[in-house]
């Protein structure tokens, strides 16, 4: 399993003073997988990524990238990893193209890599900013340079720590197209984001961290199946005035001719709920069932503010 996995994390512990930031995390990511790392603020996502990148030293446990240990074979694993840090950091002394060239240089890549750098500049829509000083870029542009810097050495495993934080809609979509392209080209992608619909659209497998522990680790469909509720929208021919008692607590809101009910998948049968509504004299003209999304499952697993 470890041999052909892109990333493998084995009973990883990290403490910051008294704070137990990672409490024995275990999982592995297959090569070519699109993996989502989700969790509320402070869950330990960045700490985990930083352990992988060598920015944080684990207290116990092992991490490997493409089968190589990140501590003992760090030279190897850092070539295999491209990390986009969460913080919007930059070197105010450099221009955009220089930032990419120097970063490539640290990996031992010189002129022979310039074509790739030009391609990155074009793909990331930075070509016309190539000679702009980093200081003079907007936040979204700085973010794109960070992504470029993570890719200068063509790493097979790309880790993005909230790449779309504070990025406008258009750029976010462009970034997703780009990341999808990297994925179809065979890169393994590890992604953290607080935009759960993004994770739902993109990720094949998802881990949810909460207070330093993994509360879920499964494929997206398994995770979505964990949703215990669904919403039922009812549209009536008349204004909805009276409600049967047994439905009252399930009703989320009533809005003239329509209402929304929250139903438990395991307990409430849609058919009998519809019967009850009809018996109450409400003339149903249309219904719509909405399954829980990742966001709902997430809230259910992580709870408001955690346990």
């Amino acid at each position, binding site marked *: 399993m470890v041999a052909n996995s892109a990333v493998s994390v084995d009973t990883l512990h990290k403490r910051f003073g008294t704070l137990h930031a990672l409490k024995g995390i275990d999982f592995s990511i297959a090569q070519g997988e699109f993996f989502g790392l989700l969790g509320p603020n402070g869950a330990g996502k960045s700490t985990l990524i930083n352990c992988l990148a060598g920015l944080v030293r684990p207290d116990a446990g092992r991490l490997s990238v493409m089968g190589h240990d990140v501590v003992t074979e760090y030279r190897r694993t850092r070539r295999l*990893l491209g990390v986009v840090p969460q*913080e919007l950091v930059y070197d105010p002394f450099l221009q955009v193209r220089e930032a990419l060239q120097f970063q490539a240089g640290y990996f031992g890549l010189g002129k022979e890599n310039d074509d790739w750098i030009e391609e990155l500049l074009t793909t990331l829509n930075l070509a016309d900013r190539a000679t702009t000083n980093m200081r003079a870029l907007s936040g979204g542009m700085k973010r794109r340079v960070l992504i470029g810097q993570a890719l200068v050495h063509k790493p097979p495993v790309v880790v993005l720590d909230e790449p779309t934080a504070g990025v406008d809609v258009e750029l976010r979509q462009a970034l997703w197209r780009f990341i999808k392209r990297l994925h179809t080209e065979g890169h393994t992608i590890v992604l953290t984001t607080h935009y759960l619909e993004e994770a739902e659209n993109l990720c094949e497998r998802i881990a949810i961290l909460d207070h330093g522990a993994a509360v879920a680790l499964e494929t997206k469909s398994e995770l979505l199946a964990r949703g215990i509720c669904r919403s039922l929208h009812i549209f009536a021919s008349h204004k909805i005035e009276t409600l049967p008692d047994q439905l009252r607590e399930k009703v989320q809101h009533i809005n003239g001719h329509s209402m929304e009910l929250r139903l438990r998948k395991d307990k409430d049968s849609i058919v009998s709920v519809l019967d009850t509504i009809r018996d109450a004299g409400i003339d149903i003209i249309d219904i719509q069932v909405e399954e829980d999304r990742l966001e709902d499952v997430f809230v259910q697993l992580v709870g408001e503010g955690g346990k």
Partner: protein
Amino acid sequence: MYGVYTLFYKEVLRFWKVAFQTVLAPVITALLYLMVFSHVLEGRVKVFEGVNYTSFLIPGLMMMSVIQNAFANSSSSLIQSKVTGNIVFLLLTPLSHFELFIGYVAAAVVRGFTVGAGVFLLAVFYAQVPVHSVSIVIGFAILSSGVLAVMGMIAGIWAEKYDQLAAFQNFIIMPLSFLSGVFYSIHSLPAFWQKLSHFNPFFYMIDGFRYGFFGQSDVAVEISFLVVVIALLVLSVLTLAVLKSGYKLRA
């Protein structure tokens, strides 16, 4: 190899792009000291046999500039990268602790050497300076800026804020460099201060450097050489261990 070279090149570029502040300004400061002190003290302070005070002063000021600028280069670069967070760009790369060390130290040596050479080039218009041995002069300049470059790395890694670095500079580097015999021969000092000076490693840098110019010194040049080399080795081993441990760089 190319990775270290890139770091070295970037670090050199970093000061060279603002050479006005990082090279020219310290050269002018040293020349101002030279004019003021030589004017006031020429003929009043007894130094080496057959050496006038102004000539004596020039190597001292050169070495003081070398020391301060080598230290400033590595320490300010590191603290800036730490404070702005862009140190991660280096920490994410396969560069080893040894390569980081070489990159920072070599660039700081270049800065120290450049400023020292700048002081020399302008000072020779002001007063005659003999050169007894070019290799001793260059050797001491490189070794001493190496020592200070390494000290700068330690300070830059240790300091978390600019004022901590400034404290290091103002309470350690400045007093040690001023009290190391830049402006006088320690033989003119009372016995107690003479003794104390022997515990100041910067004293040996300046004394050995001066030997390269005049062929005379307060202590034997071999001893100065040995002290500076040992200081460089000890501090380098310490810094490499600190870098390897990840102290204050990798959480």
